[in-house]
């Protein structure tokens, strides 16, 4: 299908149009509300732009430092210059990865994932959402080699089952409605047809839980690499990212070379912008901070160039500032009509129309013409990328040319329009000819508005104005120029009001934390050092919990019931401590290391966290200054219960991670 045909197909698809309108409206509103709580939004945006500009300008130095740190941390680093190299690296790792001992589920009858044909060198790959993996077409290559790949983000899983590619970089199944998913799960997974989103989500949870527990390799993307610490930061809402990076014995992280931030302080800045822009959240549910491999785990990082260096050395370098939040897609009126698939490239929307010709295929230069240059994308961009300016550069043939003469000026413009613009230029370069043309057109005895035919493009939906019989330049000569009047009496001065800076109310940290956590669907329980154990017992009794998964802190407080330390997917409740809690986002920060893993906060359906009041911090930036963020093996910032909005943007709680989070806030102040 040509681009034109794909455009028409999108416009004719009623379901798609409803879904896209819904997406545009809700995302705009979500973003507006999320930034309303950030009075210094524009300053942060300008700062973020400057940080990204510095990274891209000095990319080689930053990359060297980053790679050094990541290697020091014990992660194996690979560099891939193009998609093919990256794919070969993953295949080689798959080949050498020893298979896990077949777990309980392998070969047993009641499994959704048929693994019987996997053996020998064939592996099961659990994949967390990664646009880089889409860019290099990794799934296809792995499957061609006989491996099994399962996408574990709910939206990605749905599009994979349909044999499609994501329609949006953040919301892969944005083009589908619940009926489509119900039918799909009925056909592919054999469950009774249902339109109930929680049931559909829960089905995916069951299927994918098996995958996490049996996968040989976990593959993920990376949202940010932190240069000073070598930390890999990943944000997800469902918990699948955490599963893929912690449960399989091998983890492969895929990352574009440009996705760096210099410091953890910078990371705090970007984390304040990314989720707000992407999904309207103050923070995504799970912000993973990975430093070293877990005990017994091998971690690889593949750094992909694939045209990025060429982009960096082209007039499109600014496109590398992108943090892939998808806000420009949601704001774009063209995306709102088309959805992702019609673009043809895996990167759709305004940013996709800029980078696809550089990263995916030079032929995609024509996508840049699918924009009215309205600038809504730039306005939505959290790092203030001049997307309309970059689209104009792609139109002018300034994308990096990977093969000579693949791009030229005005790519995608029909030759008849080019001819017209050329003729117009010839006329307009001469005032005499221009004026003559105007007069000649004005001579035709036409109605004020002319019904021109559809093939002209303009005539498809609008009439065309008749050129004035007497254009302005003719009238000018006769304009009765009134004597310049003294304007004193008829006009008033403008009062320029100074904009008042919003004042931040001085809110108590505990109140703020409670309010934020509660708004996310989390629960807060106020306890003291004296009654904490009794309150816990009470909680377990009410719930009929007889065994809990614990970490060091959890173990200290548990009395009266059994507890386990090793990951166990059958235990329904986890009890953990925390490094600290963040009031502004309602988050708790957990770190692993010293034999302690983070599974107690991930596998069970209920997560209970013990936080002391003295551990409560005001901001994310403060939390990231904690030494343990860098010294621990890995950390996670948990912000509310696991959730997804991948089906019809309906918020559904408890996808892969816990569906409940209870914070027991322990008053450790004196006298308590």
């Amino acid at each position, binding site marked *: 299908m040509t681009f034109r045909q794909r455009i028409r197909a999108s416009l004719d698809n009623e379901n798609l149009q409803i879904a896209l309108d819904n997406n545009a409206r809700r995302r705009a509103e979500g973003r507006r509300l999320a930034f309303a709580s950030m009075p210094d939004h524009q300053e942060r945006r300008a700062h973020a732009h400057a940080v990204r500009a510095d990274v891209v300008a000095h990319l080689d130095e930053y990359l060297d430092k980053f790679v050094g740190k990541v290697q020091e941390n014990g992660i194996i680093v690979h560099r891939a210059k193009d998609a093919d190299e990256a794919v070969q690296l993953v295949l080689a790792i798959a080949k050498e990865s020893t298979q896990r001992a077949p777990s309980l589920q392998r070969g047993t009858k009641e499994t959704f994932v048929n693994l019987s044909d996997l053996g020998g060198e064939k592996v099961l790959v659990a994949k967390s959402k990664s646009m880089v993996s889409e860019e290099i077409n990794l799934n296809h290559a792995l499957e061609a080699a006989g491996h099994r790949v399962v996408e574990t983000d709910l939206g990605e899983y749905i599009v994979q089952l349909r044999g499609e590619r994501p329609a949006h970089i953040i919301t892969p199944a944005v083009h589908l409605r619940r009926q489509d998913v119900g039918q799909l799960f009925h056909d592919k997974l054999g469950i009774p047809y249902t339109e109930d989103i929680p049931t559909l989500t829960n089905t995916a949870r069951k299927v994918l839980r098996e995958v996490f527990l049996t996968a040989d390799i976990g593959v993920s993307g990376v949202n940010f690499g932190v240069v000073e610490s070598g930390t890999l930061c990943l944000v997800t809402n469902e918990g699948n990212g955490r599963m893929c990076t912690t449960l399989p014995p091998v983890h492969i992280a895929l990352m574009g070379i440009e996705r760096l931030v210099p410091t953890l302080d910078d990371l705090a800045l970007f984390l304040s912008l990314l989720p707000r822009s992407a999904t309207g959240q103050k923070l995504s549910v799970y912000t993973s901070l990975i430093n070293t491999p877990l005990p017994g785990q091998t971690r690889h990082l593949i750094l992909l160039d694939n045209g990025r260096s060429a982009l960096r050395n082209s007039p499109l370098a600014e496109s590398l500032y992108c943090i892939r939040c998808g806000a420009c897609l949601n704001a774009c009126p063209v995306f709102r009509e088309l959805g992702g698939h019609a673009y043809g490239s895996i990167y759709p929307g305004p940013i996709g129309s800029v980078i696809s010709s550089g990263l995916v295929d030079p032929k995609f230069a024509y996508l840049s013409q699918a924009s009215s240059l309205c600038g809504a994308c730039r306005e939505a961009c959290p790092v203030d990328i001049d997307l309309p300016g970059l689209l104009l550069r792609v139109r002018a043939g300034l994308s990096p040319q990977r093969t000579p003469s693949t791009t030229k000026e005005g790519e995608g413009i029909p030759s008849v329009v080019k001819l017209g613009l050329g003729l117009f230029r010839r006329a307009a370069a001469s005032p005499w000819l221009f004026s003559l043309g105007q007069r000649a057109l004005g001579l035709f005895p036409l109605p004020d508005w002319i019904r021109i035919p559809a093939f002209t493009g303009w005539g498809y939906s609008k009439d065309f104005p008749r050129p004035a019989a007497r254009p302005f330049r003719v009238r000018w000569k006769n304009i009765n120029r009134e004597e*310049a009047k003294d304007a004193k009496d008829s006009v008033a001065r403008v009062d320029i009001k100074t904009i008042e800076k919003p004042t931040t109310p001085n809110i108590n940290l505990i109140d703020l934390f409670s309010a934020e956590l509660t708004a996310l669907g989390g629960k807060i329980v106020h306890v003291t050092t004296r009654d904490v154990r009794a309150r816990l017992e009470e909680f377990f009794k009410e719930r009929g919990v007889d065994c809990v998964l614990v970490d060091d802190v959890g173990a200290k407080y548990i009395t009266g019931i059994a507890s386990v330390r090793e990951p166990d997917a059958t235990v329904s409740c986890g009890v953990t401590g925390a490094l600290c809690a963040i009031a502004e986002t309602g988050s708790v920060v957990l770190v692993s290391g010293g034999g302690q893993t983070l599974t107690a906060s991930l596998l069970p359906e209920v997560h209970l966290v013990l936080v002391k009041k003295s551990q409560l911090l005001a901001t994310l930036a403060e939390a990231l200054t904690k030494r343990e963020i860098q010294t621990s093996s890995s950390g996670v910032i948990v912000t509310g219960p696991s959730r997804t909005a991948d089906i019809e943007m309906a918020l559904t709680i408890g996808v892969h991670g816990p569906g409940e989070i209870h914070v027991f806030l322990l008053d450790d102040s004196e006298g308590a």
Partner: protein
Amino acid sequence: MGYNWGMSETVQLFVTCLVDTFFPETGEAMVRVLNRLGVNVEFPTDQTCCGQPAFNAGLRAEARPLAEHTIRVLERLPKSSRSTPGGGKTSEVCPVIIPSGSCAAMVRHGYLELFKDDPQWLARAQALAARTFEFTEYLVDVLGVSDLGARWPGRMTYHPSCHLTRSLGIERQPRLLLAHVKDAEIVELLEREDCCGFGGVFSVEHPELSAEFLKRKIANLEKSGSPTLVVADTGCRMHIQGGLRRQGKAQRVVHIAEVLASQ
């Protein structure tokens, strides 16, 4: 902004090819408004088009001669701009006034991009950009006026054009001017910041997409219950009015200059 109250100033009018050819009444209205404020208007008659259509299409080689022509024409300053009788000093340079957000954005931003690799032309483009103003911006930010004594009975709603709002940051100025129009009832347009689907060559090259934007804009105009849509960009005017005509709708699109000139 250092405007010497009551002293005459001379400006150059860059009327744009669309106003010149299709909507000359907008140009006349501008001249009336400016004259009423004591501003002398000069119209360099050699002006044609700023080159935006070709530039936006990516055809920079076609855009460049028109940009050079425009710079050359506007560099010929009217005599009266340099000093005024009686020795009163006006603005140091002669302002160029443009009744269209996108054309003003072309001169202010587009030219700098077009000539970025040519230092000589870039300097000339920068000098022109520095003295170029969109019409409402000039009235409010330079002249410091808000009430022009205009009168327009009835309901009206305002469409903030994309380039005007997002590229030039001009949003407050037209609203302020409209707020002072007597007998006018200003209502808000739903989803007002959405593009109307013009976008220059876009409206011809992607007619299906352009039509969808336009449909939504017209539907929102109908919801506003306003018979009049005010714009400050002639591209949007031509586009929305063309759509209204095609759909047989009675609403009228007018340029803000015409509203401000009416009494």
